[in-house]
């Protein structure tokens, strides 16, 4: 029983790490611009597809393809902000949401057009499996969990220690005050979208390597990402990290001990119950 619980926790950590990265991207955009960036999942998957394409089409090794894909993510994110979201910045938030829906369809369509309908798996050579007293951990899964932790740490350091990071936080906390303090509110959204999309691309690569990328996977992930945001508190970084981990492990425990058919229902029920008890989410600021 203990082994099973430990195993299920390890199982849930990998997808939990992916949720955390997706949610971090979403929560940055949300906290600073108030946009529910629904296209985030599909764009993240585009990054995963791109990595695969660089490797199989141009023969690049994974280690070379990743930085190119991340850089493309930064660029793509900035482009999306400039062309799609900036024009609706002063309109009702629902308009930005519709733009996000339109973008989702476009990106899903583009992914399908360029990368096909068959699922793709980013090839890796990591196939060892560690067995620690009955709890099995595939090497690849371990690296995915570790990379997620590393990226989260890097993100935290960036926000806490760098000037740009602090400016981003200032805008997130109080937009008007930030303007008064001389923070450039034109470049901040560009940077925010760039970073959040790069995080998404990282998640896309992890999904592509450990699992697979296929039509619809990105949309599924973004829904989970939003659930994480609600669970942890909209706009909260620590909330996204805690929320993503909790959701990943909840799903795995629910599937293993209660019902695999209803595992998503259980995950959403947990989210709704948390919301009833703490309407601002686990780590969100009280409204």
């Amino acid at each position, binding site marked *: 029983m203990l082994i099973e619980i430990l195993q299920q926790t390890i199982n849930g950590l990998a997808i939990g790490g992916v949720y955390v990265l997706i949610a971090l991207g979403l929560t940055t955009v*949300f906290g600073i611009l108030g946009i*529910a960036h629904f296209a985030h999942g599909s764009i993240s998957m585009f990054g995963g597809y791109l990595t695969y394409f660089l490797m199989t089409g141009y023969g690049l090794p994974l280690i070379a393809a990743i930085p190119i894909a991340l850089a493309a993510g930064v660029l793509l994110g900035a482009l999306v902000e400039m062309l*799609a979201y900036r*024009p*609706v910045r002063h*309109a*009702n*938030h*629902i*308009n930005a*949401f*519709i*733009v996000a*829906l*339109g*973008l*989702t*369809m*476009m*990106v*899903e*369509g*583009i992914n*399908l*057009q360029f990368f096909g309908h068959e699922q793709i798996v980013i090839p890796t050579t990591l196939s060892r499996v560690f067995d620690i007293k009955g709890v099995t951990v595939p090497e690849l899964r371990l690296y995915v969990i570790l990379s997620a932790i590393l990226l989260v740490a890097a993100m935290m350091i960036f926000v806490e220690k760098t000037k740009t990071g602090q400016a981003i936080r200032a805008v997130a906390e109080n937009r008007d005050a930030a303007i008064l303090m001389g923070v450039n509110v034109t470049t901040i959204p560009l940077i925010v979208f760039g970073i959040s999309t790069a995080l998404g691309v990282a998640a896309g690569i992890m999904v592509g390597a450990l699992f697979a990328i296929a039509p619809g996977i990105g949309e599924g992930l973004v*829904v989970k990402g*939003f*659930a994480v*945001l*609600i669970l942890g508190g*909209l706009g909260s970084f620590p909330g996204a990290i805690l929320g993503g981990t909790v959701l990943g492990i909840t799903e795995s425990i629910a599937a293993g001990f209660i019902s695999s*058919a*209803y595992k*998503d*229902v259980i995950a*959403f*029920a947990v*989210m*709704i119950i948390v*919301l*009833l008890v703490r*309407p601002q989410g686990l780590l969100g600021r009280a409204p």
Partner: protein
Amino acid sequence: MNRPLTTLVWLLAFTALAMLPQVLSVKYYLHLSILALIWVIVAQGQNLIQGFTGYVSIVQAGFMGIGAYGSTLIGIHFGWPIWATIAAAPLITALFALLTGYPSLRVKGHYFAIVTMAFNLIIVIVLVNFRELTRGEAGISNIPKPWDGDRDAYFYLALTLAAAMTLLAALIARSRVGEILRAIRQNEDLVGAIGIAAWKYKLFAFVISAMYAGLAGALYAHFQGFINPEIFGVAQSLDAILAVILGGTGTIAGPVIGAFLVVFLPELLRFADSFRLILYGLILVLATIFMPIGIVGVAKTVLARLHRPGARHDG
């Protein structure tokens, strides 16, 4: 526009629609028109909660599903006539809306949107997995159709109900309740401050909008003769939001126009073949950027300009 002129435009539009079965030689377009009329009902309901109250709900298709399955299953298990089951559908949906509305409406803004979306996902998962009742993903075939599947007759049924529901929405919008709903959209705290229990009105709007969806779902089921959970997913709930936005948020004519758009536009784009999805997405993005107030909003602005040359339209 003044009242009599508006009434005249509505009457003309109704008459034009009523002549469609005689005019349309290709029945495919009649088929789409019936779907569009069903979507008019969904969109009017969505507009009550999204447009007037300012709460973006993403569960409308889920409620359609409850209405569709409710009507179908009552018919199968209790042998009620079609009319009775269609009438029961909004009531069943209202019950579910009460249960889901309570927790959902404790939160606002994006929280509300995402919680309702979670409910839509839950509804679909239950419809898929509760196979003893719903027959799961395979769906329910041979749902009875009135008038032996005569499409002209069904068109008039859908038209009548869509018109009635539009009228009801207009009445609600003009009433004191409608005023309070709009006040909630503008400043909910203020509504609370003057001693009005805002939650009662929000719940009312949420439940009524769900009843609209439930009715539309039942109409869908007895029109198509087949339902499965796929039809009632989040993607279709997003269509309801689109219909309201594209047509014109918070107007009565907007959802009507928007509903026809979300049904016809993807069909018209079939020529684009594999680029259909990309093109549809692009149109949405461009429309939202360049026409954020919806078609009715644009039309109103244009008309106002024509009436008072040089005058600026606001509101």
